[in-house]
């Protein structure tokens, strides 16, 4: 056989709810009204939180913060598909997913305020703390998935990442490993089209990110990341398959980072306001709002209730965080190992002495 095609692949796109809130009822996931409203409320909560975090940072009450504006559907839709027994690995831009999972909001404030206790995930919640070094959470998530598989636990793992993460070696090694061992893991890539100032086309020459899955022998799909139904459907199907031994899936959620990269960034330096405006029209919350309205599930009163509840939750989380006693400096030493080695104990004692004398002086 001289020259011939031996394999073909295709990338599918999935959209269920369009920009005007029209829904493809055939593809619509079977969620009841309460569940759909829950998705809406979670997105509103995520945005309310985001707005507050931004303001707190500007007031000097929070450190650097990475906004999720515009990415609420990708986060809420995917996290909503998880079961409590599943595991979840955020990158660093997924508070929307974390709240759906049940992480106390106070902890995200704490983390970005520079307090490790914000990463002390409560017992019983199977989430990994935020990972800053891009893509490095991926092999770890695969390891958790393989350990669960080895133990016979019928769970799945969800690992989030950005478009920038797809360029890193750990993305490749993690996905390849997952493919080889058919790990029960779902990779959710929030392709918000920017990695700080680097646009997608400078990140990779591949037209979709979904097609990268073909390199690893498992399915990849591109979904409208601003369509909470499409995200939910794709992720819940993938999770189900994973839990049943069907192996990994890569889901590209095509979305857009409407804000700056972080509060330390100024996106106007490197991108045009037109692009941002265009994407504002695809707003994930507005889209679901229109859908709810069409179905008679949304009205002004409901809107106000949702928004005031969200504000209340956020304010009380801020209050909670800001009323905490400061972290104990000795925690630096306490958690390095389970048992403090002798040489580290000596350093700690030196620290206590110096610091004690200092406190007296102050």
């Amino acid at each position, binding site marked *: 056989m001289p020259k011939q095609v031996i394999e073909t692949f295709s990338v599918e796109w999935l959209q269920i709810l369009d920009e005007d809130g029209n829904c493809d009822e055939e593809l619509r996931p079977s969620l009841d009204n309460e569940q759909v409203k829950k998705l809406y409320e979670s997105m509103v909560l995520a945005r309310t939180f985001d707005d507050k975090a931004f303001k707190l940072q500007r007031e000097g009450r929070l450190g650097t913060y990475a906004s999720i504006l515009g990415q609420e559907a990708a986060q809420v839709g995917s996290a909503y598909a998880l079961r409590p027994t599943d595991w979840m690995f955020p990158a660093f831009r997924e508070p929307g997913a974390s709240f759906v999972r049940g992480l106390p909001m106070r902890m995200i404030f704490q983390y970005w305020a520079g307090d490790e206790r914000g990463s002390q995930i409560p017992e019983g919640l199977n989430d990994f703390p935020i990972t800053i070094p891009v893509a490095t959470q991926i092999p*770890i998530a695969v390891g958790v998935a393989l350990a669960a598989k*080895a133990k016979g636990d019928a769970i799945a793992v969800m690992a989030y990442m950005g478009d920038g993460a797809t360029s890193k070696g750990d993305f490749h090694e*993690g996905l390849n*490993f997952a493919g080889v061992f058919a790990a029960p893991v779902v990779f959710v890539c929030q392709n918000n089209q920017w990695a700080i100032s680097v646009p997608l086309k400078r990140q990779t020459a591949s037209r979709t990110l979904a097609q990268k899955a073909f390199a690893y022998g498992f399915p990849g799909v591109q979904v409208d990341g601003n369509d909470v139904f499409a995200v939910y459907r794709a992720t819940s199907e993938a999770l189900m398959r994973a839990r049943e031994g069907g192996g990994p899936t890569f889901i590209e959620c095509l979305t857009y980072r409407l804000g700056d990269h972080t509060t330390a960034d100024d996106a106007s330096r490197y991108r045009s306001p037109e692009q941002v405006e265009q994407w504002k029209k695809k707003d994930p919350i507005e889209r679901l709002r229109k859908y709810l309205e069409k179905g008679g599930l949304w009205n002004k009163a409901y809107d106000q209730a949702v928004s005031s509840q969200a504000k209340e939750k956020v304010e009380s989380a801020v209050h909670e965080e800001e009323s905490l006693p400061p972290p104990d400096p000795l925690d630096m030493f306490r958690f390095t190992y*389970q048992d403090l080695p002798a*040489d580290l104990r000596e350093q700690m004692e030196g620290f206590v002495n110096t610091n004690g004398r200092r406190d007296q002086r102050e």
Partner: protein
Amino acid sequence: MAKLTVVEAINLALKQEMEKDHRVLILGEDVGKNGGVFRVTQGLLDIFGEARVMDTPLSESAIAGVAIGMAIYGLRPIAEIQFEGFVYAAMEQIANHAGRIRTRSRGRYHCPLVVRLPYGGGIRAPEHHSDSNETYFVHTPGIKVVVPSTPYEAKGLLISAIRDPDPVIFMEPKKIYRSLREEVPEDEYIVPLGEARIVQEGTGITLITWGAMLQPTLQAAALMEKNGTKAEIIDLRTLSPLDSETIIASVKKTHRAVVVHEAPATCGVGAEIVARINEKALVYLEAPVQRVTGFDTIMPLPKLEKYYLPDAGRVIEAANRTVNF
């Protein structure tokens, strides 16, 4: 009691821990059917099956990262990196995750992981197969570094490493993989982490070393004894955390010390030992502590490696420098 090599002793420790604790598993390149390129995992696939002896893709960063995930989920993974020269690709996972997860999650997660890392020169191995890179790990907080120097030590230390609740880099001196045999009990025993061992007591000088360098150090000590100096020899066993106490007590007694290691001198573990002696036993010193180490150059290919590696002659010269100071 059988006389085993280091390879056999490690194999035995792996087998027994895997029998005892079903959470223990092995992953790495060629660890399965092939039994590891040094045959350290030989026979384990047959006993424990593919789920517990996992041949992996050629993927050092993922081997480390996946093992971290497994450890966090409650297993006790033992990852093999085939040679020390390939561990750099796993540094990000080791430094940014394995060593940090307990601290950053304030104890919610921890990482009982062992990374087995054959290291060191002297076996005429190809390029990148003869380095000694313990410093990278000793300098990295949150992980432990263990280096056995004999078959007995290897078994006991590895068992401790596997049971340790924190990540351990277990560095295996290739040079003595098969060159020594020693009685190794079949029964379970542990050699605790963090405690150096006095291989030989003495009063004339303290010789501090670990891993494969114990052998030339012993040779040097034997020659020195003929010339009237009885050396105290310390085998550190654990490089992180470092057992300063044993070192300091010995130097206070002998007033002279030589540190012997294969790695380059600059910022090697030898430097740390000198610094600790300086801090805690300066006034006891009759002469500067001497370092006998690899040079601050690239470890050469086999034709020149003997010029690079410390040997008994260099140890004796250094000891003489402390005496004739």
